[in-house]
């Protein structure tokens, strides 16, 4: 009796639970993300997911156009006019850019937003120095509330583009009592910034987590408004009614979908199934093998456009050019040895085997996708004989017949056996083993040394490594080589882990930065790339391609190099799809 009851309950539960298929005629885009942003505060958080959502809910004065990869005006009428000394930039704000309460965006809002970015009391420690080193002050035009001038600290390439990631916030909404009116830019940039009681109280309220997480507080100038945030599950943004930019012709003012839902799925297998079941419309976060498997299915190709696209991030093997000689032996001090390492790594094979061909190579620090890429530099081919020759020329010879090269250093015979550190992961482990095998053929022993992120990073900063596998993110916007390639970044335990650089390369970096002339800037970067190529502090490995899938029920399924790689606001639901559900055909 009990058994029968139990079976009945179980079967009814199953029947009740049968899943409802998604209604694909809805004008809703479901975009896949792998983790939720650490808040949607306009200043206080810094994840890439946040930027993805802000594409649709927030606006900046200028913007990087992901189609042309040039900066274009967004909330201003034109790109800024520089003064003769290139230290002052005049902007004029567009008319009729309205906040949600109907008031117009003006220069006071801009000044307020900049003050928030520069203030030490804002919780934006990670990015504040990017702005405090560029902006000196914002000067309002007394007779024109739509005009202002940005005064820069120095001549710097970033001066023209500094507003591209500074989101505008409404002064009358956040600071109606004008608490920040009493604080000047000089006060904010002073070494001993004075926190008054009133300011502290105001910032305690402004930095409150509600302003990062409560949908009602997440306001902005974008066409969409956050309406729901279900923690670790999804964020829903909905099109505003009577949005000020509805008649604007720019593609960034389009707002075809009524709703955009950012759905969080961490696990690759689950994302794969979600695509199969058409539970998501857009993804740039699916695994390579999974996408390749999906592309073998006819119904998937009927339902989705999918591609592998290049991007700006890259992986490298760093070689310690300046070891202390005590803890770390001088394996890679000689440029010939470093060049030999470049000949020894079977990068094309690694791309083929580990990335299934879905990665690209680059010769130096700048991605081939950028206009400043030095295309005269040739990729270093895999050539064990050439590597052997270089190693012999550098004095590394197998004198004791054990197939490992050695050299007399300070009277002691040192075998070429070095530690290759990397952050533990199954893929990295396989790659390191492929490298090890290849290096052994030339008489070099690489000892794989996996470690966790904290230790790896600490060792890198302390230059306590022989060789290391690392990677850097990137974007179409200018990446200041200061952090990675300037000699000061080696001394101060910054990101110049390998010790690259000399006066010449430092001068090139400074030249690229401290100019506004595109030709001077480009030439300096071309020469810097040539120098890095020659010196070989890194063996540049590969740049894995970004994986895209966009549902065919939308038009305008553009895919781009620059993250996020898609324009969700431009996805226009096809009329033909709005009246029927799609069903996958079975089997192939």
């Amino acid at each position, binding site marked *: 009796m009990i058994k029968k009851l139990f079976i009945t309950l179980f079967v009814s539960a199953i029947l009740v639970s049968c899943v409802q298929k998604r209604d694909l005629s809805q004008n809703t885009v479901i975009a896949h993300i792998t983790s939720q942003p650490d808040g949607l505060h306009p200043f206080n958080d810094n994840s890439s997911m946040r930027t993805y959502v802000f594409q649709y809910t927030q606006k900046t004065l200028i913007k990087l156009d992901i189609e042309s990869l040039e900066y274009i005006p967004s909330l201003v009428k034109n790109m800024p006019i520089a003064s003769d000394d290139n230290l002052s930039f005049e902007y004029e704000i567009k008319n009729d850019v309205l906040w949600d309460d109907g008031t117009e965006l003006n220069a006071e809002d801009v000044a307020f937003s900049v003050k928030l970015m520069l203030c030490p009391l804002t919780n934006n*420690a990670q990015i504040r120095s990017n702005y405090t080193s560029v902006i000196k002050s914002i000067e309002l035009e007394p007779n024109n509330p739509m005009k202002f001038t940005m005064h820069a600290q120095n001549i710097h390439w970033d001066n023209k583009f500094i507003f591209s990631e500074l989101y505008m916030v409404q002064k009358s909404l956040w600071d109606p009592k004008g608490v920040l009116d009493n604080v000047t830019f000089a006060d904010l940039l002073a070494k001993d910034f004075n926190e008054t009681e009133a300011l502290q109280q105001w910032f305690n309220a402004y930095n409150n987590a509600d302003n990062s997480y409560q949908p009602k507080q997440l306001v902005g100038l974008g066409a969409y408004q956050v309406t729901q945030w279900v923690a670790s599950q999804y964020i829903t943004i909905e099109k505003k009614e009577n949005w000020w930019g509805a008649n604007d012709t720019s593609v960034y003012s389009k707002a075809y979908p009524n709703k955009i*839902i950012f759905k*969080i799925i961490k696990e690759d297998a689950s994302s794969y199934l979600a695509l199969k079941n058409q539970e998501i419309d857009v993804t740039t976060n699916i695994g390579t093998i999974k996408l390749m498997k999906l592309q073998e299915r006819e119904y998937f190709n009927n339902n989705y456009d999918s591609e592998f696209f290049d991007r700006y991030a890259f992986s490298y093997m760093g070689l310690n050019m300046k070891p202390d000689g005590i803890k770390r032996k001088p394996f890679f001090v000689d440029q010939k040895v470093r060049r030999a390492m470049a000949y020894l790594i079977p990068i094309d094979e690694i791309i083929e085997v580990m990335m299934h061909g879905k990665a690209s190579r680059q010769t130096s620090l700048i991605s081939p996708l950028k206009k400043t890429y030095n295309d005269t530099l040739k990729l270093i081919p895999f050539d064990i004989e050439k590597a052997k020759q270089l190693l012999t020329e550098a004095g590394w010879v197998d004198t004791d017949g054990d197939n490992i090269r050695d050299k007399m250093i300070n009277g002691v015979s040192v075998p070429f056996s070095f530690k290759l550190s990397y952050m533990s992961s199954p893929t990295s482990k396989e790659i390191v083993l492929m490298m090890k095998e290849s290096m052994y053929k030339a008489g070099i022993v690489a000892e794989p040394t996996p470690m966790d992120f904290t230790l790896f990073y600490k060792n890198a900063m302390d230059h306590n490594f022989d060789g290391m596998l690392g990677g850097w993110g990137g974007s179409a916007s*200018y990446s200041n080589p200061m952090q990675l390639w300037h000699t000061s970044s080696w001394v101060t335990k910054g990101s110049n882990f390998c010790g690259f650089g000399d006066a010449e390369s430092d001068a090139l970096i400074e030249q690229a930065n401290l100019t506004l002339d595109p030709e001077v800037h480009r030439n300096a970067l071309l020469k810097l790339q040539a120098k890095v190529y020659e010196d070989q502090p890194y063996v540049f490995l590969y740049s894995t391609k970004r994986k895209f899938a966009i549902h065919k029920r939308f038009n305008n399924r553009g895919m781009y190099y620059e993250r996020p790689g898609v324009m969700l606001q431009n996805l226009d639901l096809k009329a033909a799809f709005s009246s029927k559900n799609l069903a996958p055909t079975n089997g192939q």
Partner: protein
Amino acid sequence: MFKYTLKRILTFIPMLIAISLLSFVISINAPGDPVERLSKAAGSEGSAEQQSGASKKIKQELRRKLGLDLPIFYLSVTDLASSDTLYKVQDKYHKANLEALTHQSGNWEAVSSYYASLLALQKAHQKVDAKAIVANDSSLSLNSVNEAANQFGFEIGSLLETADKYMVALKFEKMKSLLADNTFLSTLEYPLKDVVKTRENVLKNATKWRTYIPAINWYGGKNQYHLWLVGNGKDRKGILRGDFGISYIDGQPIADKIWQKVWISFGLSLVSIFLAYLISIPIGIYSAYKKDSIADKGMSLVLFVLYSMPSFFVGTLLLLQFANPDHLSWFPVSGIQDPTLFDPEWSWWAKLKHRMPFLILPIITYTYGSFAFLSRIMRVGMIDIVSQDYIRTARAKGLGEGKVILKHALRNSLLPVITVFSAIFPMAIGGSIIIEMIFSIPGMGLEVYNAILNYDYPMIITVFTLSGFLTMVGYLVADLLYAVVDPRISYK
């Protein structure tokens, strides 16, 4: 029974204080630094210039904001040699080095002078202007000046983190030779001499005996534990008033973060345990009743095969079988609700009905592993009871087998099963990372994992403390259930 329950609840208080203190001390002293993590924009090539001085200031500012610049507890037990102001040193690696040096020599004052002289040398080094030097002396190249200055600068940084006598001596030698070979670095000569002198002082005036004498340092109310416990009277109220603090990762109140997720973890645990018991107990009884029969052996085999399959494997397998248009597309793939349909204004019942399909596969994955050991425990307990005299008597009295087993034997064999039941409570706060990852369930497992990776101390301490509390509640419930099930057990 009521008095007993009250007494047990009163013992929770000192236990909770002890657990919270232990978790506090462990997490603060664990390697890794949340400020390092928070003040880095990891992995990016960087845009505008970042000066090390500025970032040190930013880290100090962050430390102050998070209260990490205070001592850990009201008092610390060290030795006579150690300083009570060491907590004020901001850099974790410098602090560790100073501790090591003090432990070597036993003379904090000497070590402190040595540290101060190193910092002075570092300051002097920062004033070295390579371009000005080259401008004054055209025989020098900017390259060589920079190279020498950079090498020197790096050695200073390294010395600040090195306590090893041999390494320190080597570095002094290197710095002296750099100075000798490069006269343009003469401004660093006196500061370096000062460093060498203070170092010799550390070695000469070692008072190692002091390291063998314990000392207690009192810090008063201004410490991290007190801040956590009672707050600061401004933005933090302290745990005693229900303020678990703010997450270092995203600034959200810990209480909100936990509350959003704990109900799903607890719900899943509860349903899973309920189902596990519902299925395992009859299996256990049947296996005991038909001991060593083919049915018993067959069921044991199946259950142990299930037990041996890891949950990530089974979870993925279930998804690929039941949420896959190529096979059976019965259940959704991820999450606990459909974002296009779910309405937060729905009634409790409507929400549950909507969420049911999403929870079937995770519940199966959560539950199947428990069948084997629960049914084995039940079986063993039952076999033991069934062989007792009173069971033979009950049969002899003419009672039906069903009544003998289910009425007389079952209750007495529940004791081991109840013990296992007490484990359900802490599972609510722990969750299961694997299942939550595979099925995208917003539970506590992933939250705790994330907190550990990012050194989110407030979250770690709160979860640790709550976990301890729930374990105690679990034991209390188990003890009370023993008394309910077996009248021989009494707490009067």
